[in-house]
């Protein structure tokens, strides 16, 4: 699924996501060069460091929520999951989005898949 792709993982990401990535052929790289940056917690020091880096501020890096990988694992596919719905912004941005919509897109997706689960 992730062959020829590189990723950086924040220490906040559960081991299962990390293992899923590598078991599907993905490799690990430094956050500056990795194709995908995954974190679960915007306030985790390693993630915070990226949010405040010039790479993030000027080159417009995007960090994705590791829930994306959980969703891929659940569906055994990357095709039916849109990574664009799993953007993990800085905590202050999350607060602003929550003020408007109540939750972030991935929080909604997560709830939905939890509902799907409970229906089974």
């Amino acid at each position, binding site marked *: 699924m992730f062959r020829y792709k590189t990723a950086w993982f924040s220490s906040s990401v559960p081991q299962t996501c990390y293992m899923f990535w590598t078991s599907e052929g993905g490799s690990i790289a430094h956050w500056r060069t990795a194709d995908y940056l995954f974190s679960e917690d915007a306030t985790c020091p390693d993630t915070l460091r990226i949010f405040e880096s*010039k790479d993030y501020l*000027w080159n*417009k890096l*995007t960090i994705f929520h590791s829930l994306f990988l959980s969703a891929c694992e659940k569906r055994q596919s990357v*095709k039916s999951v*849109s990574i664009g719905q799993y953007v993990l912004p800085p905590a202050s941005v999350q607060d602003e989005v929550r003020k*408007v919509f109540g939750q972030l897109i991935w929080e909604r997706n997560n709830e939905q898949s939890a*509902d799907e689960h409970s229906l089974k």
Partner: protein
Amino acid sequence: ENVIKAPVPYSRCAACVLPFEEVTSHTFESLQSSCHQSCDRHKVLREATERFRMHHCKLVFEKEHQDAAEAERYSTAEPQRSCKNWTGRSEGERKVNNKNTLPERRWRKHNGVTLVPLQRRAKK
């Protein structure tokens, strides 16, 4: 009860349906900015993130400016030189242009100043 639980329908934009294969952490932002019809969620997310970036760029700028001013104080030669390249391009901007993604113009427009890595010049 079921009705309440049903997800609220919302419009989907290009960023909402971007497939994994076509986007990375380095390209998402420019792909999103080039899509003119953002859904409400991505619009709010983008604007709030842009505010965060501007605020922090300002902090970095102020810090570097302060550091440079400090360096000036200890240097006797050419006290004006840090202003000479004021409109010079930043390191970040060059990198972005090389990658052929969106330049920093938007940011500059809002602030009227350019971020210049003053530390580097101060070392000269």
